[in-house]
């Protein structure tokens, strides 16, 4: 297996926020913490509005891991970036380092209280016994230990959000792009992760 990745197809995302709701429900994430959110650009401009679902991208060279002063991050064999909340001191360095704004900090109290960092776990739990009460309370659901994929991707109604092994979801996305009559040059995934593509002629009558 390569690495677990998310891929959001902006041509399909309809900004329903179902992924956000699924994540909240699956992991019982508290108010003020959004492990996943939908970002919309050109909001309201006809033809130019695009939405994308964003969470921790489980970077192969994660900047949060690099800046953490207490080294509480680790990467699993499946390429999922997780952290130990028992070690986290809630300093917020990872938030500044992350280009996606993935690290979240619960602010339940007064005076700007900032708790330990919380982020998307790819529904892989954390460094506690799998499927235990402790793991659930600290990190939420562990669907990978049940042979499942992240709830956000599995329930996406338009299948805009794909989750799983990077090679597999890249192949799914590539097939879609070809069906649309485009090549993988429309986006950089093929260059970054995929196999060398054979140049193909657009299908007759294909729409953009």
């Amino acid at each position: 297996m390569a690495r677990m990745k998310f891929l959001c197809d902006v041509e399909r995302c309809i900004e329903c926020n179902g992924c956000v709701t699924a994540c909240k429900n699956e992991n019982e994430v508290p108010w003020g913490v959004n492990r996943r959110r939908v970002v919309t650009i050109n909001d309201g401009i006809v033809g130019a509005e695009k939405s994308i679902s964003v969470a921790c991208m489980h970077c192969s060279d994660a900047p949060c891991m690099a800046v953490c002063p207490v080294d509480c991050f680790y990467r699993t064999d499946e390429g999922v970036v997780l952290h130990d909340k028992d070690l986290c001191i809630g300093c917020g360095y990872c938030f500044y380092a992350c280009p996606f704004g993935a690290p979240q900090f619960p602010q339940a109290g007064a005076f700007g209280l900032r708790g330990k960092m919380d982020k998307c776990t790819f529904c892989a739990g954390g460094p506690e016994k799998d499927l235990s009460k402790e793991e659930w309370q600290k990190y939420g659901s562990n669907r990978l230990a049940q042979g499942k994929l992240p709830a956000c991707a599995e329930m996406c109604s338009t299948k805009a959000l794909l989750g799983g092994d990077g090679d597999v979801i890249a192949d799914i996305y590539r097939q879609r792009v070809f069906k649309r009559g485009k090549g993988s040059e429309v986006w950089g995934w093929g260059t970054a992760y995929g196999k060398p593509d054979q140049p193909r002629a657009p299908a007759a009558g294909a729409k953009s």
Partner: protein
Amino acid sequence: MIALRKVVLAGAALFVALGLGACGERDQVTVYKQGKYQGKPDTKPWDNDPAAAIYTTSKWDKGSQTSWEAAVKTRSLTQNEYTRAE
């Protein structure tokens, strides 16, 4: 008198031993090593019993990374509706 003295001495020795035993010193701060994960080890998803998971169709051999990956890959491919529709 001598017996009482022995009892008192034995009691005192026991008290000292127990008292000092509670004074063991252990590190109260984590000693960090730069660039290395300092937290608890995590378990592998394939080490879980697939029968323990409810509402899942994935089946794998407990402890087998290969079969777990195959199960997850099969599940991943269900996200491709082109293969389901055609």
